[in-house]
């Protein structure tokens, strides 16, 4: 089962200017093969499909709790796209072509299929799909796959960071680079416990430290790179303490497990876009809805 918290993992800056093409690029970090929807669904299915949950509880706990974190990552990237995807169209009568600037943008789907908001696809509009989910059921193989997946996700984030300097995108990527580093290390440690082989020796891949990225450095300094959360207040996933222990080989600091969730930040509200007919509730309809909502409570 899942509970939901109406908070965003971090506070996202909300400048008034946007960049439609940057929002298009960020889609890869959401619905691309190495995007957050992939990390989410891989760990989620692996957790559903885990054979021997009691016998191998710490490994089950790891993949189950990271699933919950990844939900928040998907939410964060989608919100980033929504905050960056602005400033292309204006409000006006349909006949004055208020969305004329959209035809030059890289992702026209954002203006047609959605109201300038996130879609479940990559930066070229190719849909996210279930073939991106690897759930072999073999523990070591799945852990090795997850290690590879997180490293690929990191690489893609670094590339998108180099493509745009929009503050919202940079802040999201900076934070997720650090969290991604945590997951890479978590799977490396899980592999070491499962096989005796220390694969963390080959990190970082690519061979660039997170501290080279301004927006990641501040999260590294806050210790965000040393903590795993259990995403549960009933002690269900305490087993991760048996894997996430010792010191971080990349900075020498102690690894920490924290119960529950991070503090989080408010979920941004999004402007109405009449030119997109979104949400498409005018003042009169709103009155009727308010009346129907308030009666018979």
């Amino acid at each position, binding site marked *: 089962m899942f509970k939901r918290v109406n908070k965003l993992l971090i506070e996202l800056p909300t*400048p*008034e*200017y946007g960049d439609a093409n940057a929002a298009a690029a960020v889609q890869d970090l959401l619905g691309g093969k190495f995007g957050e929807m992939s990390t989410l669904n891989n760990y989620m299915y692996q957790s559903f499909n885990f054979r021997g949950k009691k016998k191998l509880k710490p490994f089950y706990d790891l993949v189950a709790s990271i699933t919950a974190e990844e939900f928040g990552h998907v939410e964060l990237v989608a919100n980033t796209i929504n905050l960056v995807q602005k*400033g*292309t*169209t*204006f*409000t*006006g009568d349909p006949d*004055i072509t208020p969305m004329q*600037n959209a035809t030059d943008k890289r992702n026209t789907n954002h203006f047609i299929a959605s109201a300038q908001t996130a879609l479940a696809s990559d930066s070229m509009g190719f849909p996210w799909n279930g073939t991106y989910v690897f759930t072999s059921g073999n523990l070591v193989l799945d852990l090795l796959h997850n290690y590879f997946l997180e490293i690929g996700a990191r690489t893609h984030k670094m590339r998108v960071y180099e493509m745009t300097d929009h503050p919202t995108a940079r802040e999201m990527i900076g934070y997720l680079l650090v969290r991604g580093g945590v997951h890479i290390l978590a799977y490396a440690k899980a592999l070491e416990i499962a096989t005796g082989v220390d694969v963390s020796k080959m990190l970082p891949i690519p061979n660039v430290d997170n501290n080279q990225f301004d927006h990641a450095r501040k999260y590294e300094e806050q210790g965000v790179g040393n903590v795993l959360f259990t995403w549960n207040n009933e002690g269900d996933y305490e087993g991760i303490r048996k894997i996430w222990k010792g010191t971080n080989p990349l900075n020498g600091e102690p690894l920490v497990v924290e119960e529950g969730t991070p503090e989080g930040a408010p979920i941004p509200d999004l402007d109405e876009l*009449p030119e997109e007919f979104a949400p498409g509730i005018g003042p009169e309809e709103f009155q009727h809805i308010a009346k129907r909502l308030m009666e018979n409570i």
Partner: protein
Amino acid sequence: MDNTNETIDMMTMIDPYLYELMLQFVDDEVVIQTTRNSLQGMLMSVMPDHVVIQVGGTLFYVRIAEIIWITKGTP
């Protein structure tokens, strides 16, 4: 040439008719189409080479040379 000191007034390229027109739009909601994108907000002030438009709570300073058209906006 004279030996006396001559002052040179600043010379700037302006679109004189566009400039005059935009003065009338000050304090109105406008839509500005630039060579890059469109901006929609309250026209705060007009200078010979740029205008100031407030979008949400933020001021944007837009070069007149980069404006393609302006029109009255819907608030």
